[in-house]
């Protein structure tokens, strides 16, 4: 059914169609609308046989989810940014225990300075937590990925984070196809847990494991991610057959065939990039675009295969690893070891800064001319940064950088 709907509410509809048994909710922008809608569905009876728990923190939210999932319930929660960090311990715990929880991450910057707008810093902070991490390019994909996520999570007994860009997707109204219940039921079988707390068959979950087996436990976690690389395309195919839509999979390619230059990105940025490369193609060579739907596991072999003819790969990513560069870039460089191409990192859209097509085109032009630095910050206000750095070099007690920059912006404008 086509519906003009906010991204968050669409995700909530999708979650409800998956018949979760326990939903834990704690408000944090920009995911709040999702859990609000879930709560409404439970209260109105649209979603039945579901316990909706208003918890006191994100740590509790995921902890409740852990308990519910370990007790054999299909479990969902959502968070963002600081919330993900506050539950960090539980994030690792959920994957360590192999609990197929599905959690939406409304991607948002991490403070300080506190910032409610979109980037991928939060997701990147948990990239090694053992979760499968899927990124939605559009709201339709966000909706679809949730339906796939429950099937994938339960098939592998592994938690899944479905990432969608805060505000850009979560708060955007679009016409979306909402599947009907029968179709979802046909696609997503009832949850049969691999392990469950059950008085009829008691065992202990969550043992302490020492050096004698810890490496093996971790290896198996890695192997589970590798299994996901096989399962995700199957589910992608199966979803396509059931719903007639391309959603998910390991990554989407756009004009990659024969392109010497390919831009790699994640999330909603892909749409703008596609526009940018199309416009650019009118004046020069076609630049390809790859958007990763599956960031963890990192589809290394598949990307290598997709990029084997590329000579120039530019990773545009919404997070920075200070002192190192781009996080996705590092993964990609690993993937492309031995391939005759170079990888450039472009940091863009931090803390909600708009990433515009003209900016991207300008950056790509420089890249095509071989003028792009290995690490480039898109639309960085160089003057503002240089003035602060100069102040710092003068040894003045400067106070918080963020405050100085704000003052600077007020004085000099955004030059």
């Amino acid at each position, binding site marked *: 059914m086509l519906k003009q709907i906010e991204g968050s509410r669409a995700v909530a509809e999708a979650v409800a169609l998956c018949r979760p048994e326990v939903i834990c909710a704690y408000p944090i922008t920009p995911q709040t609308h999702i859990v609000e809608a879930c709560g409404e569905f439970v209260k109105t009876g649209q979603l039945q046989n579901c316990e909706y728990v208003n918890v006191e923190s994100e740590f509790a939210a995921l902890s409740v989810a852990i308990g519910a999932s370990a007790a054999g319930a299909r479990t969902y929660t959502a968070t963002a940014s600081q919330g993900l960090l506050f539950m960090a311990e539980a994030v690792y715990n959920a994957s*360590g*225990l*192999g609990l197929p929880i599905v959690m939406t991450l409304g991607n948002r910057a991490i403070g300080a300075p506190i910032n409610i707008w979109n980037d991928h810093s939060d997701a990147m902070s948990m990239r090694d937590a053992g979760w499968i991490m899927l990124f939605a390019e559009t709201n339709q994909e966000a909706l679809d990925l949730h339906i796939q996520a429950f099937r994938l999570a339960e098939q592998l*007994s592994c938690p899944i984070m479905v990432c969608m860009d805060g505000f850009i997707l979560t708060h955007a109204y679009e016409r979306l196809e909402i599947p009907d219940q029968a179709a979802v039921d046909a696609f997503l079988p009832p949850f049969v847990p*691999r*392990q469950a707390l059950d008085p009829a*068959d*008691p*065992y*202990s*979950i*969550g*043992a302490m*494991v020492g050096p004698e*087996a810890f490496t*093996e*436990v971790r290896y*198996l976690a890695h192997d589970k991610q590798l299994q996901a690389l096989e399962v995700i395309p199957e589910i992608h195919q199966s979803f396509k057959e059931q719903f007639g839509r391309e959603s998910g999979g390991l990554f989407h390619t756009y004009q990659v065939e024969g392109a010497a230059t390919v831009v790699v990105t994640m999330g909603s940025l892909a749409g703008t990039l596609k526009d940018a490369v199309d416009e650019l193609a009118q004046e020069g060579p076609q630049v390809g675009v790859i958007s990763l739907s599956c960031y963890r596991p990192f589809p290394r072999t598949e990307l290598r295969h997709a990029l084997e003819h590329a000579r120039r790969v530019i990773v545009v990513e919404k997070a920075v690893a200070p002192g190192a560069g781009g996080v996705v870039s590092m993964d990609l460089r690993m993937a492309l070891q031995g391939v005759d191409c170079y990888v450039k990192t472009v940091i863009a859209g931090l803390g909600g800064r708009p990433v515009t097509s003209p900016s991207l085109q300008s950056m790509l032009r420089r890249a095509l001319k071989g003028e792009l630095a290995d690490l480039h910050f898109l639309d960085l206000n160089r003057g503002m940064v240089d003035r602060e750095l100069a102040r710092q070099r003068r040894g003045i007690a400067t106070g918080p950088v963020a405050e100085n920059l704000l003052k600077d912006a007020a004085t000099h404008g955004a030059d």
Partner: protein
Amino acid sequence: MSALHPTVPFAITLDSATSLQNKTGSWRTERPMYVDRLPPCNNACPAGENIQAWLGFAEEGDYEAAWQQIMVDNPMPAIMGRACYHPCEGACNRKFIDTEVNIHAVERFLGDEAIKQGWTPKWETPDSGQKVLVIGAGPAGLSAAYHLRRMGHHVTIYEAGPVPGGMMRFGIPAYRLPRDVVTAEIARIENMGVEIVLNRKVEDIQADMKAGGFDACFLAIGAHLAKRVDIPAPDASKILDAVGVLREMETSENPPMLGRRVVVYGGGNTAVDVARTAKRLGASEAIIVYRRNREKMPAHDFEVQEALDEGVVLNWLSTIKEMDDEGSFKVEKMALDEEGYPQPTGEYETIEADTLVLALGQNVDTSFVQTVPGVEIGSDGVIQVDRQMMTGFEGLFAGGDMVPAERTVTVGIGHGKKAARCIDAYLRGETYEPLPKHELADFAKLNTWYYTDAPVTVQPTLDEVRRMTTFDEVHAGLDETNALYEARRCLSCGNCFECDNCYGVCPDNAVLKLGPGQGFKIDLDYCKGCGLCAAECPCGAIKMVPEDI
């Protein structure tokens, strides 16, 4: 690691109770051991009763089982519950918590219940075909006869007097020991097949043994000859002896004439008994004259107190020097020296009295054994026996008041039991060896937290006025509720009563409960030797012993 659940995560999810593979017993340096310690009551009982065991049955309301348990050691619980001075109670650990268990009252309840219900002792020993002669039907003789009968022997008692019972009739007044009780308990022994021949005085033991075809003989005629002191008196008829007075109470149609003012000379239980008897016979004054003070009186304090309550007067630190023509006694005041011995002071006073009763103890009439070869008589006039209670004459055993020992009914009954065991062994050509005694369960070995504070049930006492005028029994018995209550005050010192504490308090589940009556077992595979079971055992029935490491 899950053998049973193939789909669960490796290492993180584990099959239930797999820690049983981890034998934590290897941590142990000490192990708990269940022990049986000797309860102080049992240890103190001259009759060797297993008091704790019968209190155990009584506590559960199984009175017949309790009584049968007493009967293993003592054939006369109803008498014992009244006449015994209950050293068990003096030893009872419960006195450190509140007051001792009123053991004798429960025993008496059980004894009376047995008479009322007509219970008979159960024993299953086959007939030995051997014959034993017992001389004297007092406590020791009756006890020996009873035990020998239980052991399968044929027993005949020759009693010189007209009634059986000995000191149980002639030594203890009826107000303390009703005669129907004595009669009933003796009758029960007779009903077991013990033959009592009355008015049969033995003059020649060897001849009687031979004539009757007896294989052994137990001599227990007691000590009936009153000790005298030489008090110059113009009218000797006014001086009586205590044993004689008490005997006359039993045997004569008319009670002895003691007069209005009676002086009793002596400080033992017999002195008190006579004074109290005199009060009951109508004496307006009964005065006990004793050369030392009340603390030094051999008589039991509770009896002295009862006598005082009944109006008996105590005149201690006094000796009677002489009696004048008017029937007055000249009494010299004494003072205790540093060693506690009375020394004359030279101060005199006069006591008026119609009668003086001497209660200075008794001697054994050994005249008829002096001719038996090998029998030794000690300087104190009592017969010497070896550890087997046998005299110097092969097959002739002796016990009770005739041999060196405390002279009480209970000791006599104990002698009877021991002599029976020795005689039984002798008849089999063996020597009786008592089992080694267990370590004493003293108070320090108990953890008394687990017992409710429960004060002793005071036996309902008869109205004091009433008991001064009649020979009704002074102490009423316990009713069933009281007896049960009293039995349940027992701490079961030193012996497991299956309270489940050890089973409950083991942090390692290393105590196995074997089921009712079966007790417990330490599972040494898992016992870490922490000692909690021993520390929390209320009755001190677990001991920690070092492991050989």
